């Protein structure tokens, strides 16, 4: 187990390095620069700015300079805003993290029980109704669901603010928008996983032993049945936590997703790089966590490794 984690961390560092390098040169290869904004600025001022940020040097020099400070944990200054990238991400990331955590809670809290119930009562109304709703949920894009929720609960019922991120209640609508979509996917995956295991021979063995039905579900089936959900959560976790750009825009949330897109439009090289690296770390950590949980749940994996 320990060896496995160590190896994965080493792999992650390599991946991170490759991502950093590729992104760096791609961002710089994109047409335009941080200062070619709408407002034209005098050439000599632009020249000074370029010098200030070191953008006048050859790209390879800039690259080594960037990696150098990155190793020290410094993501550099933003080329557009006055704050450093560390500061900007330091304020936007916690917002996205909080939103994502609520969304994840909703996704699992609804998705898992619904999926389990649907599998247990397969081919009855307790299966058909929630599964049809889940299908709708999967097909519904967040840019539709978000405004619809805002319209119903914000405008008509007036229970929540339509947008903003100030009071605790402001978390509800955006978290629901992300959470419900993932809940729908998780419900379907859970159902599939549970059904797969319920059809296995060893469930028949458990019945023949006289194991009561609830124990068959929660003790004999759940571990194997949740494996597909866990593997789905790997990539999904990063997506949920980084908060979708769309949802952050709809509800005017000062999160990282919105920041990321803005920075790309502004050609704010350092900020783009910073967000990409944070995203990459997030994805890597999420996948590592998922792999560890999978190994814990599935003893067969444990063996192959050692």
């Amino acid at each position, binding site marked *: 187990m320990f060896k496995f984690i160590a190896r994965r961390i080493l792999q992650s560092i390599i991946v991170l390095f490759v991502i950093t390098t590729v992104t760096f040169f791609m961002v710089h290869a994109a047409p335009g620069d941080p200062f070619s904004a709408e407002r034209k600025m005098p050439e000599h001022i632009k020249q000074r700015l370029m010098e200030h940020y070191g953008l006048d040097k050859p790209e390879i020099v800039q690259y080594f300079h960037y990696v150098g400070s990155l190793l020290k944990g410094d993501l550099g200054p933003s080329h557009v805003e006055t704050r450093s990238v560390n500061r900007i991400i330091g304020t936007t990331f916690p917002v996205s993290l909080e939103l994502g955590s609520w969304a994840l809670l909703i996704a699992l809290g609804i998705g898992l029980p619904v999926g389990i119930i649907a599998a247990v009562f397969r081919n009855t109304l307790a299966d058909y109704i929630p599964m049809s709703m889940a299908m709708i949920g999967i097909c519904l894009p967040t840019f539709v669901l978000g405004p619809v929720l805002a319209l119903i609960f914000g405008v008509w019922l007036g229970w929540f603010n339509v947008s903003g991120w100030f009071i605790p209640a402001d978390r509800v609508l955006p978290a629901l928008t992300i959470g419900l979509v993932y809940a729908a996917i998780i419900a379907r995956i859970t159902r599939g996983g549970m059904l797969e295991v319920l059809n296995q021979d060893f469930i028949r063995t458990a019945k023949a032993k006289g194991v009561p039905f609830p124990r068959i579900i929660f003790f*004999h089936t759940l571990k194997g049945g949740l494996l597909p959900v866990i593997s789905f959560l790997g990539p999904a976790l990063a997506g949920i936590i980084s908060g979708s750009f769309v949802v952050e825009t709809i509800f005017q949330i000062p999160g990282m997703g919105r920041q990321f897109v803005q920075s790309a439009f502004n050609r704010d090289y350092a900020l783009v790089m910073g967000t990409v690296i944070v995203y990459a770390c997030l994805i890597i950590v999420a996948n590592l966590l998922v792999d560890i949980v999978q190994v814990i749940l599935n003893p067969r994996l444990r*063996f192959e490794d050692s």
Partner: protein
Amino acid sequence: MAILEVKDLKTYFHTRNGTVRAVDGVSFSVERGETLGIVGESGSGKSVSCYSLMGLIPQPPGRIESGQAILDGKIDLLNSSEKVLRKIRGRRVSMIFQEPMTSLNPYLRVSTQLIEALRMHEKLGRKEALSRAIKSLEEVGITEASTRVHFYPHEFSGGMRQRVMIAMSMITHPEILIADEPTTALDVTVQAQILELIRERQKANNSAVILITHDLGVVAGMCDRINVMYAGKIVESGTADDIFKNAQHPYTIALQRSIPSLGSKGKALYTIPGLPPDLSRPIPGDAFALRQGIKSGGKWANTPPPMRQVSETHWVRESDVILPSLEEVLDVR
């Protein structure tokens, strides 16, 4: 008195393609300490009869249409509440399955699976149950049981897993053990050991054993009495001697002739021509007579053939099928 008495068991599957009469009026009984063999080709309804007794028939599509299965003269296994049955399954009646590779839960340690029945049925504490589990593994010939009890199933070979299954099914000292082709998936050298083990455990507990197999060779050495099944019905029933020395039904005779060990060496082996009938259509008369390449007098074409008593222990279903000779069978091939 018989420990289990099954009367007129009918289990049908209601599928889109019609009603499959998998088990169609089966009656038999087993005494304590006795071994009953159930023999028949694939699809003859052996597993379904036993699954019916254990409440393992998937419903739907399956349905137990009629019958009784009286345990120890008191409880009807087919018509009792789930609560009553749960206390019987795995304690008084237990089962070993055909597929040792998949019949143990891969996500749980063997120890967890072994002690489950003890904790549930005998309300034993963890420690006590664990020491019983270790003992039960030793009894089925697993060495270093106190370490290996904590292994996961995938850390055992197929033969070892079947030993674990036997240990698990015998751990509560059941009165009846149903073994559904316990050796079919195993290699020949292991088969004999497993059968021997079942017999030994049976003696130790004075259990009744119902041994299902499609191989007459297996029942020859094991069983006191044998039921031969064909297309959901018992066609012949008797002691091992009745069946092996005085077989009456043409199907039993054909089965016997196709056992390699009983046929003489070097000669071509007998095979029964044709295939068993499609059980999703009603069969009005003798099902065996419907088989391709088999001739009959036609007496039982439209009336169900009754059972005839041959001796005190020996019953056979009427049939006027004339088996084709070995030469004819070979010609067709």
